[in-house]
Every structure is written in structure tokens, then in C-alpha cells.
């Protein structure tokens, strides 16, 4: 029984850390304490409600046939088909974005952490990346539209009969998506590089290895978990973004290839992803098929949560390894 003591009683000491009892606090502090608990529990409750709500709707509306059927512009839920094309679109766009962003993000992280000469240029690059990280994706998207409708970049998308370049394709959308992912990959990789002790680098130099070799053979392998974590975060960001898809991918229901070459035609063509499909089928879009929207949102949420769980696993395994 912990009675009122001026000093914390041994019973109140848990885990070797003395804890004062909340009951003895002034009223204001107790109110604040309760508020903190309320907010903490509230956030958990909201997250729980979102997940359960989406799960219920998902189970109610997801049918295996939806995953393998192409969408069509039907008037009712029954005739509008499934969302095979949006799933393929999401995977394809994420792949393109990651393939562009990962090398750039890692290269910039290495340069900023290991070279960073001249200092003013490094500072400028740092600020630039910070600016990109803070720029709304809708602004990035319409900037992309501006750049990629230049005639000399016509090979990335399609040219209309009138000679104007369309600018919208998987390649152009993927390139702009990469800008979303670069700050995340760069930040994570840099954090990893900063944690590598100086003596590791010195040991490598002492063996006569050059700086470039040290980076390639010593530093990059040791920050692999950080790179993986950053890339996965970036993929989550790309999967979840809608604005760039709506503006720079055309947000068409099906993947519409351009030109004859299979593969390349899809890359140069327009399409949609799960996010644009959800928006299209929400009451705010033209499709207005809420059941399809819920089903697609459920699949999207599963993808994002899987990526999220992957990040957690990568980082936790890494912290264990570091200890």
C-alpha cells in the first residue's frame, strides 16, 4: 500500500526509476496528465477506427475477380469492371520512381557526407533538397507537365496530331515521383553514413584503399539497411501520391500504350494507379462507384501498410545489429 509520503516510497520505484504519484500533483498538472493520456489513446482509437472501417468495407466489396479484371467506364457498380490496370499502374510507377530515385538519393547522400566540396555548393544542394521536400506534389506535377511537353522530350510521351507534346506518361510521372522519394532516401542514407565511426574509414585508408573504394566497399555495404529503409519509405510515398498521377499520368482508367513496341509503349503511354482510381470512383470523381472506391482503397491501404511494416522491420533489425 503506497500511502502519502513526502519522499517516494520504495513501492513507487519501478525499474530502478523513482516515480512520483500523480495523485499528489497540483490540479492543473493532473488535468494536463489526463489530456496527454486522452490524446494518446485518442490517436490509437482513430487509427483503429480507420483500419477497422477500411477492413469492413474491404471485406464487403473486394472480390477476387476485381483484381484480375480491367476497368471500363460502366454506368453502374456491376458494369464498371475491376481494377487490374490501376494495380499494374501502381506497381509500374513505383518501380520507375524508385529506379530513378534510389541511385540519385544515395549518390547525393555520399557526396554530401563524404565530399561536400566546395562547402557553399554543398549547402546549396542541402537547401535545395529541403525545398523539394517541402514543395507540394501538385506543384512538382505541373512543373513536370511544363518540362516534359518540350518538343525535345517528346520521346518520353506522345505527340498529338497537331504536333504538341502531351507530356503525360509513366516515364514522366515516374521521373517526378522520384523527386518525392529522393529527400527520404537521401536523409536516411546520410543518417546511416553519419553513424559510421571515423575509425572505420581510417582503417580502410590505412590499408591503402582510396576514398572511392572505401565508399563502395566499406561505407555503402554498412549503410545498406538505411538505404533499404529510405527506399521503402520513398516507395510508400510514391504509392500514396495522387496529385502527380492525376496531372502527369493522365489518370486514365486503363493503361493506354503509345507506339508499337510492347513494354516501351506502356511506359510512354498514360494510365492510372490505385490512388487515381479511388479518386475517380469517389463521389468527387466522375465514376462515382463508392463500392469500387472502397475496394481499391482497401487494396491500396494493404500495400502501404505492408511497406510500412517492412520499414519497421528493416530499421528494428538494424538497431539490434548496431547494439
Amino acid at each position: 500500500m503506497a500511502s502519502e509520503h513526502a519522499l517516494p516510497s520504495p513501492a513507487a520505484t519501478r525499474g530502478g526509476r523513482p516515480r512520483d504519484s500523480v495523485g499528489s500533483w497540483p490540479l492543473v498538472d493532473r488535468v494536463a496528465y489526463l489530456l496527454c493520456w486522452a490524446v494518446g489513446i485518442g490517436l490509437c482509437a482513430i487509427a483503429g477506427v480507420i483500419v477497422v472501417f477500411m477492413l469492413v468495407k474491404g471485406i464487403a466489396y473486394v472480390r477476387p475477380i476485381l483484381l484480375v479484371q480491367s476497368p471500363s467506364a460502366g454506368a453502374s457498380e456491376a458494369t464498371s469492371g475491376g481494377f487490374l490496370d490501376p494495380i499494374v499502374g501502381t506497381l509500374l510507377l513505383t518501380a520507375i520512381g524508385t529506379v530513378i530515385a534510389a541511385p540519385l538519393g544515395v549518390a547525393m547522400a555520399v557526396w554530401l557526407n563524404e565530399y561536400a566540396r566546395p562547402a557553399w555548393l554543398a549547402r546549396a544542394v542541402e537547401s535545395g533538397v529541403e525545398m523539394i521536400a517541402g514543395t507540394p506534389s501538385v506543384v512538382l506535377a505541373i512543373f513536370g507537365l511544363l518540362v516534359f511537353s518540350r518538343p525535345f522530350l517528346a520521346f518520353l510521351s506522345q505527340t498529338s496530331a497537331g504536333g504538341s507534346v502531351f507530356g503525360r506518361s509513366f516515364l514522366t510521372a515516374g521521373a517526378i515521383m522520384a523527386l518525392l522519394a529522393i529527400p527520404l532516401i537521401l536523409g536516411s542514407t546520410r543518417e546511416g553514413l553519419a553513424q559510421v565511426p571515423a575509425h572505420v574509414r581510417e582503417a580502410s585508408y590505412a590499408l591503402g584503399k582510396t576514398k572511392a573504394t572505401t565508399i563502395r566497399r566499406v561505407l555503402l555495404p554498412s549503410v545498406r539497411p538505411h538505404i533499404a529503409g529510405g527506399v521503402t519509405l520513398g516507395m510508400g510515398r510514391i504509392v500514396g501520391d495522387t496529385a502527380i498521377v492525376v496531372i502527369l499520368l493522365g489518370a486514365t482508367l486503363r493503361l493506354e500504350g503509345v507506339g508499337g513496341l510492347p513494354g516501351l509503349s506502356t511506359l510512354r503511354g498514360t494510365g492510372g494507379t490505385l490512388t487515381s482510381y479511388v479518386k475517380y470512383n469517389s463521389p468527387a470523381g466522375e465514376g462515382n462507384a463508392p463500392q469500387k472506391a472502397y475496394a481499391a482503397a482497401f487494396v491500396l491501404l494493404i500495400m502501404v501498410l505492408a511497406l510500412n511494416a517492412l520499414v519497421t522491420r528493416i530499421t528494428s533489425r538494424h538497431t539490434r545489429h548496431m547494439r
Partner: protein
Amino acid sequence: MGRRSSGGSRDKRAELALGALSVGVLAIIALMAVTVFAKAWPSFAHNGIKWFFPGGDVDQQLNAILGGPKDPAHYVYHLRAWPLLWGTIVTTALAVLIALVVSVLAAVFIVELAPAAVRRTIDPVVRLLAAVPSVVYGLIGILAIAPWVERTFISQQRKHSVAYVVQLTGSNLSVAVLILALMIVPIMVALVVGALQTVPRSWTEGSAALGVNRWRTMWRVSLRTARPAIVAATVLATARALGEAIMLSMVSGSRGFAANPLDGSTFLFEPVRPLAATIIDYIDGISVVPLEQTLYAMAAVLLVSCAFLSLAAWAVKQPMKRYGIRA
């Protein structure tokens, strides 16, 4: 052996290549600022400073630009974008205010008050909330929350009170603000928790040793030390809120209307449409040159605001360095 002797020049090449890549990305960013502004210029030039002022129905003006003559000599540019700016300011300010209170309390809870078991649950919960795509938030908002708000809060009487200027529906400012706040809370919680964890342990222990209770210690020592980081987190969250387009275009009512605080509680149920959502809503008309230039003008405003906010976030964090704390 040959590789060894050429090591120096290879090293140089590696540095140059990596540096060139970095500078290349920097150049793309600079190009973005320049091209967006160049494209936006006619819209600003025709309207002058009045671009930012109120005057008339902004939706009618946008539709007039969209349906204007195709002849470059007769392009329509007339725009008074204040309702859109006001919509952006109000949604962002209210959402950030709510998020600030919630996230500071949540961060204190996570860092200090929560038992270890609860902390292990709430960490992934915050990450989950941050990972949910904005379109999913928008979908839940428009299909679940908006109809509820419409049934519960929008009485006939309330509808009649503002019927002469605007129609009330379930998609309105209140829904937009609540969901936007929910979307930026996880970002802010993560940043504030990070800052609180960098407060030197000896400082909080010193406070506890003086008999100060755990809440007071957090309030007086930790939160005060981390104040610059909290401000920085708020600023970054503001930038995120400014740029949110999809969710807001779905649940904000999508009406270029300057919600009027003088309408009392009805203010919260009036529709708005922030800048970013406007770009999304009018993107189908981007082949019309003057509308395209108007949309780029909106993007330019967003770009400048967000750049300033990034700069401000960097500047406010500087005092933390004085304590030797990196956050």
C-alpha cells in the same frame, strides 16, 4: 598495380561524378522555380497586385478564363483569387493549430508519461496514420464523415441563413480542417518526439531531483528546450498542409467561397477551396493557355510560400545548436 597508381584520378572522378549528380538535381530545382514563374507571369501581369484581392466570384472568373476566346489578343485573365487564398489560410491555420496542441500532448505522452507497453503500441500507430494515403483520408471523409456532418449539424435553418451567398453541404471547412489536422499530426508528433528525446537527460533529472513532478519537468524544461524544434515542426507541417490537394479537393466543398467568420458557427460549415485543390479541380482545362497560366500562378504562390516555410524552419532551429543539441 595499375589500379593502385590510377587510384588518385579515379577518386577525383568519383567525386566529380557524385558532385555533378547533386548539382544536377539542384539545377532541376532552380529550373522549376524559374519556369513556373515564367509561365505564371501573364496572370500576375494582367491583374497586378489585385490578383491577391477579393472581388467577385472566383469560380465564375475561372470559368470565364476557361471559356474565353482562343485568340491570344483577347485572352481573359481577370482573377481576384482572395477566396482561394483565404480558403488556404483558414484550413491551414485551423488544422495546424489543432495539430500543434494534439501533437505536443501526444509527444509528451510518448516520451515521458506512457508506460512502455503503451509506447510500443502508439509508435506504430503514429507511423500508420502518417502512411495512410491522402486519397484514402479523402474517401473516408467524403463517404463517411461528410454525410454525418450534414445530418448532424446542417439544419434547414442554418442552410437558409446563408442561402443567399452559398449552399451548405456535408463537404465543408470543418471536415477539411479535421482531416487535414489528422494528416499532419503524425508528422509533427514524429518531429517533436525526436526533439524531446535530444533534451539532455541530466537536465530533466536535475529538475526531477529538485522535486518537480514529471509533467512540470516536461513543461518547464523539456518542452522549453525543444521549443525551436516544435516551431520548426509546426512550420514544416504548415508547408505540408498548404500543399495538400487531393484530400481537400474531395472534402472541402470545392467552391471558391471566402467562408465568413462573422457567420458564427455556420462559418465552420461553409465550403472553401484552397489553392492546391483548385489546381487539381481545373487541371482538365490546362490546354487553355490563359487558364494554364493562371494555374501556374497559383502554383507559384504555393511554391514561394513553401520555400519560405522551409527557410523559416531552418532558421528557427538554429538556437538549438547553441545548446549543442541536434534535432
